[in-house]
């Protein structure tokens, strides 16, 4: 419980510091194009890694289970331009159904 509060408070404080730093420091210090393009890639690579880890990992093991089916449904729905909430709920429903039927 206590460590969860640590995570909640620490990540919130750091997030705020990152935001306000941009308003405090002069732009010239961070105008380097390399830093900008790295920063553009950071959310891409991390979100991609999070998709994979959340779908396949169980601790340190790789498992193929109902989550993969949910992810495939999400992928198809995103291709069809479905809204966020539909994508998330469909993935949940499909993998829940799969578990209910086959586990």
């Amino acid at each position, binding site marked *: *419980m206590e*460590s*969860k*509060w640590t*995570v*909640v*408070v*620490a*990540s*919130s404080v750091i*997030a705020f510091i*990152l*935001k*306000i*730093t*941009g*308003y*405090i*420091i002069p*732009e010239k210090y961070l105008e380097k*194009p*390399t830093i*900008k*393009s790295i*920063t553009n*890639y*950071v*959310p*891409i*690579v*991390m*979100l*991609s*890694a*999070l*998709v*994979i*880890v*959340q*779908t*396949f*990992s169980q*601790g340190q*093991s*790789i498992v193929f289970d*109902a*989550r993969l089916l*949910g*992810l495939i449904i999400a992928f198809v729905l*995103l291709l069809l331009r479905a809204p*966020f*909430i539909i*994508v998330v*709920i*469909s993935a*949940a*429903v499909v*993998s*829940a159904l799969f*578990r209910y039927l086959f586990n």
Partner: protein
Amino acid sequence: MNIPSHASRSIVTRNAVSVGLATGLYGISFGALAVTSGFNFFQTQVLSLGLFSGASQFAVVGIIGAGGGSIAAIATSSLLGVRNGFYALSLANLLKLKSYKKVLGAQITIDESTAMAVANNNDEDLGRWAFWATGISVFVFWNIATAIGAFGAQFVTDPKSLGLDAAVAAAFLALLWPRLSNLRIRTVALIAGILAFALTPFVQPGIPVLASVLIAIFYGIREKK
């Protein structure tokens, strides 16, 4: 000047409310997923009030829910939050924030408010208006939605049976989706995914996601040669 500005303000306000409502809908899923990942109602709400950045918030609950360590969760959240600092940097000249407004403005500097400010900054007043309207709208709806989701999820006993673990994966994919604008970015995303997959058996949970930043650094350096 004043009259058309007033008319376009109401259009911008309407758009800001729509963006807030749409974002709010996934705030419900955040609230529900946070509680089923082991965060209590208040911790979940503080994440939406304080951390207030969708991708970082999903990352924190995803990593802790999957058994990752506190440091990995905080580091991942923070690395995902670096971009908000760059948004602030690019908005500073437009917004010209002073004293307490700097604090409030910083807190609502996120993807949505930045995008709306930039989209309307051909007229500086309108750009500022778009920033505040969108930021406040998203903040309010996101937090209300979080509370609804978190409250509802308290009655869920087995999150897996409801497929909520798959919902987290789908949420990350949906957050990633609009950023995959060209082939190069898709390739980088794919490589990062493969690296995370390959590392999973060998390192602690949470580390594969942090390691993906190396891919960003590699391609970021190569891009500007």
